[in-house]
C-alpha cells in the first residue's frame, strides 16, 4: 500500500450518503488534485460512523478531527486550511449536544456519543474503505478464517462460539453455537450457510451499515461458519432496497475470490466455500427464516411450521444454518480473540455488544454499539443526548414492531435479552425509537400494528385477520370512537395471536399493544372514556382554541382553509369548532403562541 500523510475519511453510510457525502468525496478529490495534494492525502469513503445526526461526517487523520454537517462549499476551506496549512476549520468541528463543547481537542473516543460505546461488530465501519480488501486484511481480516481452517477442527470452532455465549442478534436471541451444532449434527452431502440480511424493522439500519461498512467481515464469518457446520455454499439474502450494500458485497465476493479466500481449496486446506447473493423484495416476513428460504428458492415468501427446523431440512431441502448479519459480525473477532475475551464484555447471559439504531425523539440519531448490560438510560441520555427541545422522555420502543414500549420508570433496566423480554419488550434486531411527551401511546401501538398488518403474509388466521381486527379497534380508539370493553377485546385477541400464530411475526405482533396497555393504560382509558388524547396528538380528539394571548392580527383567520376563524382586527379571535378540520395551520401561523391544542 502507498503511504499518505493524511487520510480524509468521508462517511459513505446510509445517512450521510443521503445528505450528500458522495458529492463531498468528488469535491475533495478535485481540490486535492488541484492543489497537488493527491499523492499526500487520501480520501476514503468509509462505512457508517454512527452519528448520522451530524452527517455528512468527515474525519481527518492523523489528527482525528471530527467535522460535522459538512457541505460541498466547505470542502475547499478544509483543503485550503486544514490539509494545506494545518489549521482546523473551527466552525465545522462537531459540537457535543450535551456539553455544548467543541470537540476540537478531543479524539473520537472522548466525544460523548462515542465514549460509552464499544465497537466489536462495527469495528471497521468508518475506519476502512469497505471496497478495498487490502484494508480489511490490514485490520486482521481473514486471519480468523485462516486460524479456523488451519488450526482448529470444526468442533473446536463451534465450541469457541458456544463458549463465547454469542446469541442471535436478529431478534430471538438463540445461542449461535447451538444453532451451528444442530446444523453440523445433520448428516448430508450438501449444506447451506445463509446470512439473513433482510433487515426490516422500521428505522433499523444496523445490518445495512455493517454490510456497507465492512462486507468482508460477513463473508469471513460465513466461511468460518460454513467450515464449522460442513457447508460448501453460502447465500446472503439481502434487501434490494440496500443497493450500496449489494454492490459492496458483490465487489467483496469478487475480491475474496481473487485472493483465494472464497472458492475452492481455501488456504490449501481442501475446504471449498462459495457465496451467492439473493435480493429480497422488501417483505418484512422474509426475515423469518423459513420464509426467507422459501424466497431464496423462488417461492412465495411465507413461513412454514417448524419442525422440521432448517438445521434438519432447510434451503432446497438441505440442512441449513441461518444467522443474522450482526451476529456474523462478531464471529471473526471471537475466533481471533477467544471466547473468554468476548464473554468479558456484557453480562452472563447476554455476552458481547449490541448495535442499536437510535431514532425518534432523540438528539443524536444514529447507530450505536454498546456492551450488553448497559442501562437503557445510558443509551438514551448519555449517548443519545436525550430528547430534543427539552421535551420530557416518555418511552422507548425496542425490537421494532415485534417489541414493546418501555416507560421512563423502567429506564434503568439493563440491556439484556432476558430482562427486556421480562418487561414485555424484546432485544429485537436493534431498532430503538424514543418517544417524548408529545407521543400518544395508543397511536404508537396503532402505528406499529399498522406495519405488521401490512406485512402479514396472510397464511395463518390469527395474524391475517386478528391483527387486522386489533388495528381496527385501535383506529376507532384514536378517532374517539372507542367503546368500553375495547381494551379487553384487544387483550383477548393479542393473547390469542401470540399463542396461536404460525410464525414469529404473528406471535410478536401484539407486543406493542400489550406493552402500551400495560404501562399506559390510563392513556387508553382517557381516549375511550373521556374522548381525550392526553398527549394532544390524536387529531380527532383535540380542539384548537385561541387564548387571551391573541392580539387580533388576523393571520390565523387568513390561513384557515375552511374559514372557521372569525374576529375583528386587534380583538381576540374565535375558532368555530363545528367548522374546524383540525389541520393545525392556525397554530403554526400564530406568532404569539395564542393557539393551543386541548
Amino acid at each position, binding site marked *: 500500500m502507498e503511504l499518505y500523510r493524511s487520510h480524509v475519511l468521508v462517511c459513505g453510510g446510509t445517512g450521510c450518503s443521503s445528505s450528500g457525502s458522495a458529492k463531498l468525496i468528488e469535491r475533495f478529490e478535485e481540490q486535492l488534485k488541484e492543489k497537488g495534494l493527491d499523492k499526500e492525502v487520501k480520501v476514503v469513503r468509509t462505512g457508517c460512523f454512527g452519528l448520522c445526526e451530524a452527517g455528512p461526517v468527515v474525519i481527518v487523520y492523523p489528527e482525528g478531527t471530527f467535522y460535522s454537517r459538512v457541505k460541498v462549499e466547505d470542502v475547499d476551506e478544509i483543503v485550503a486550511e486544514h490539509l494545506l496549512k494545518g489549521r482546523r476549520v473551527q466552525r465545522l468541528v462537531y459540537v457535543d449536544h450535551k456539553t455544548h463543547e467543541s470537540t476540537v481537542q478531543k479524539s473520537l473516543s472522548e466525544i460523548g456519543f462515542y465514549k460509552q460505546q464499544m465497537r466489536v461488530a462495527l469495528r471497521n465501519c468508518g475506519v476502512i474503505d469497505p471496497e478495498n480488501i487490502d484494508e480489511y486484511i490490514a485490520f486482521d481480516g481473514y486471519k480468523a478464517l485462516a486460524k479456523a481452517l488451519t488450526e482448529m477442527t470444526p468442533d473446536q470452532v463451534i465450541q469457541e462460539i458456544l463458549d463465547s455465549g454469542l446469541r442471535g442478534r436478529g431478534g430471538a436471541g438463540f445461542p449461535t453455537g447451538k444453532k451451528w451444532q444442530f446444523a453440523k449434527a445433520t448428516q448430508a452431502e450438501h449444506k447451506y450457510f445463509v446470512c439473513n440480511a433482510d433487515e426490516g424493522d422500521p428505522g433499523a439500519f444496523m445490518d445495512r451499515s455493517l454490510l456497507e461498512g465492512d462486507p468482508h467481515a460477513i463473508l469471513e464469518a460465513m466461511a468460518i461458519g460454513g467450515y464449522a457446520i460442513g457447508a460448501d455454499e453460502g447465500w446472503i439474502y439481502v434487501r434490494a432496497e440496500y443497493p450500496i450494500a449489494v454492490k459492496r458485497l458483490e465487489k467483496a465476493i469478487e475480491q475474496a475470490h481473487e485472493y483465494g479466500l472464497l472458492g475452492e481449496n481455501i488456504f490449501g486446506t481442501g475446504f471449498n466455500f462459495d457465496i451467492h447473493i439473493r435480493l429480497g423484495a422488501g417483505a418484512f416476513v422474509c426475515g423469518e427464516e423459513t420464509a426467507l428460504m422459501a424466497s431464496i428458492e423462488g417461492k412465495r415468501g411465507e413461513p412454514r411450521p417448524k419442525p422440521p427446523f432448517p438445521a434438519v431440512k432447510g434451503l432446497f431441502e438441505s440442512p441449513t444454518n441461518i444467522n443474522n448479519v450482526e451476529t456474523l459480525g462478531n464471529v471473526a473477532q471471537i475466533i481471533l480473540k477467544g471466547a473468554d475475551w468476548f464473554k468479558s464484555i456484557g453480562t452472563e447471559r447476554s455476552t458481547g455488544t449490541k448495535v442499536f439504531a437510535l431514532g425518534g425523539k432523540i438528539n443524536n440519531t444514529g447507530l450505536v454499539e454498546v456492551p450488553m448490560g448497559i442501562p437503557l438510560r445510558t443509551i438514551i441520555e448519555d449517548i443519545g443526548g436525550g430528547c430534543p427541545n427539552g421535551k420530557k422522555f416518555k418511552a422507548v420502543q425496542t425490537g421494532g414492531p415485534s417489541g414493546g414500549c418501555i416507560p421512563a420508570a423502567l429506564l434503568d433496566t439493563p440491556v439484556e435479552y432476558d430482562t427486556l423480554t421480562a418487561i414485555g419488550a424484546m432485544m429485537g434486531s436493534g431498532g430503538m425509537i424514543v418517544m417524548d411527551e408529545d407521543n400518544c401511546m395508543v397511536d404508537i401501538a396503532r402505528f406499529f400494528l399498522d406495519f405488521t398488518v401490512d406485512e402479514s*403474509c396472510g397464511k*395463518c*388466521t390469527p395474524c391475517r*385477520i386478528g391483527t*387486522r381486527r386489533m388495528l381496527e379497534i385501535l383506529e376507532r380508539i384514536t378517532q374517539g370512537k372507542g367503546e368500553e370493553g375495547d381494551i379487553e377485546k384487544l387483550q*383477548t*385477541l393479542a393473547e390469542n395471536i401470540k*399463542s396461536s400464530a404460525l410464525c414469529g411475526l404473528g*406471535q410478536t405482533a401484539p407486543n406493542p399493544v400489550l406493552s402500551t396497555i400495560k404501562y399506559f393504560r390510563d392513556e387508553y382509558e382517557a381516549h375511550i372514556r373521556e374522548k381525550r388524547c392526553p398527549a394532544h396528538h390524536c387529531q380527532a380528539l383535540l380542539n384548537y382554541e385561541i387564548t387571551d394571548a391573541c392580539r387580533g392580527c388576523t393571520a390565523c383567520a387568513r390561513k384557515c382553509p375552511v374559514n372557521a376563524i372569525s374576529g375583528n382586527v386587534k380583538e381576540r379571535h374565535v375558532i368555530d369548532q363545528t367548522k374546524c378540520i383540525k389541520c393545525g395551520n392556525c397554530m403554526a401561523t400564530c406568532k404569539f403562541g395564542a393557539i393551543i391544542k386541548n
Partner: protein
Amino acid sequence: MENLVKLTIDGVSVEVPAGTTVLEAAKKAGINIPTLCYLKDINQIGACRMCIVDTGARAFGAACVLPVANGMNVKTNTPKIREARRVNLELLLSNHDKKCLECPRNQKCELQQMCNDLGVEDVDKYKGKMNQYDIDDLSPSIVRDNNKCILCRRCVAACNKTQAVGVIGPMGRGFKTQIRSPWDQPLNDVACINCGQCIAACPTGALYEKDSTKAVWNLLSDTTKHVVVQPAPAVRAALGEEFGIPMGTSVTGKMAAALRRLGFEKVFDTDWAADLTIMEEGTEFIGRLKNGGVLPMITSCSPGWIKFCETYYPDFIPNLSSCKSPHEMEGAMIKSYWAQKEGIDPKDIRVVSVMPCTAKKFEAKRPELGHDGMQDVDEVITTRELAKMIKEAGIDFANLPDEDFDPMLGESSGAGVIFGATGGVMEAALRTVYEVVTGKTLDKVDFTAVRGIEGVKEATIKVGDLDVNVAVAHGTANAAKLLDSVKNGEKTYHFIEIMGCPGGCVTGGGQPFVSAQKRMECDPKVLRAQALYTEDANKPVRKSHENASVNVLYKEFLGEPNSHKAHELLHTTYVKRPKYTK
C-alpha cells in the same frame, strides 16, 4: 420393525410410528382435533390454527404438522386451547359472508360444522371490514366465490400437487390475500382443466359446480321435448351417501327409479356406452398394434385428462384414442340410433348426463362433440346436483324400490360398470382385447394388477404371443409423472389408462362431499371402487363384447366396430391448447 414413539395426549398414553403427526396420534387416542386447512395426503400446512395443541412450548403447535416425539405431553383440551380455537374461528367468521341458508354447502360445510362443534356464540364478535369479491362464474364447470373463502388453501394444494395444474394460488398478502389465478384472470381464461378437485377439497361454499339443475328442470317441464337421461358408472357408487346410505353402497336400482320419478322419458345408462367404448377403443388398439399405429394408445374417457393433455402434454395428442367418452357416445347413439328406431326427430331429443364430474360440463360444449348442429349431450349435472333435484322433488330415495334401466341403451356388462374406478377401463379393455385377439375365453376375468389406488400402476399381460405392457395413472400429477417417463424413454407401454381425478370417477369433482375428518377415517377412493367391483362380480355378463344390445347395435346400425359410420358418430378429434390464453 417400525420405530415406535410413546407420548401422552390428554393423559392417554399412545404409541405410534415415528413420523406420525400429533393429529393422527390423537385420533388413535380417541380424540378428534378440529381441523380446517388439513386434508389428508393433500394439504398439511398448519395455516388455519384450528388444530392447535399445547405441548408446553412457547406457542401452541399445529397438530396437523407437528410430528410426535418421545415423552411428548400433549394437551388438546384446555381452557386456553378451547378459547384460542374459538377466537380463530370467530376471526374467520368475521371475514366470511355467513349467508349459510342460500349457500350450496349449507349443512355440508366444514366451517358451519365447526361453529356448531366449538360453540360459537356470536358470529359478529370480531366484526370489522370484510373483503368483497365478485363471484367468478365464467367457467362452464367451476364457480369461485371468494366471499366464502377461508384461505385454507386446500384447493390450491389439490390444483398444484394432486393435479399438477397450478392455475390458482394465493395472491396479495395479509388481510387482502385471496385465492385466484394470476393477474386476476377468471378461471375460464386460464389453463384450468375443469376437474373440480378444488371443489372436492373446499371445506366451505367458496367453490362449487356451475348449476345446471334449473336448466334440467326446465327441460323436464317442456312437453315438446323427449328428455332422456344417462348416469355415469361412478354415480351409483356414491349417490346413496347424499341420503344417509353408508359409503361404498351401490344404489343402481334406486337411482334408476329416482330418475324415472323425476320425469325423464327414458332412463338409459352410460354403462351401456362404456361397453360400446370398449368395442371401439379395443378395436382401435388392436388396429394400432397390427398396423404400426401410434403407441402407447391412451384412453380418452376423462375430459379433465383430455384438456390436461391438450394443454400440458400436446405431444401426446396423437396417442389419445379417438373414441368419444362414453356419455358422448351414448348421446350420439340416442340422437341417431334410438331416434331412428323410435321415429323421433333428433332435434326434439334432449340428453341429460348425470356425471361424477365437473369437466363433463365443459366437454358437453366442445364443438367436436355433436352432429348436424346438435350437441351429443345437452345438459350435464353432477351427482350432487342430482341429489339436490331428488330432494327438491320430495323423493324418498332411501326407501325406493330397485328398478331397471330402459332397454336398448340401458343394459351393461360388468366391464362397463368398473369404468368408474381407476384401472376399470383398462381391465374392461383387456377382457375384450384378450378374447378378440386370441379367440380364447379368459379363465379369470379379474385383472387385479390394474386395480387399487397406487398412483401409477403397471402390468404386462400376455395376449397370444404378445406381451402387452399397460399402465394406469389417476390424478393428472400422476399422469404427468407417467408421461414424463414415457417421453424420456424410461418406459415403453402399449396401452395407458389415464383418469383426471385421483381414484378415477368415483372420486371425481362432482361426487358427494367427504369431509376432511371423514377422510381421516376412510378412503372414499377405495370404498366407492369396491361398490363397483362388487356390482361387476354379480353381473351375469362381464365382458363388453358379450353385451347383447351393443351387438344388436352393430348389427342393426353401425356395422362393425370402427366402421365408417362408427367413426362418424363415435370418434372425435383434439386440439392443442395454449397454457396462456392472454
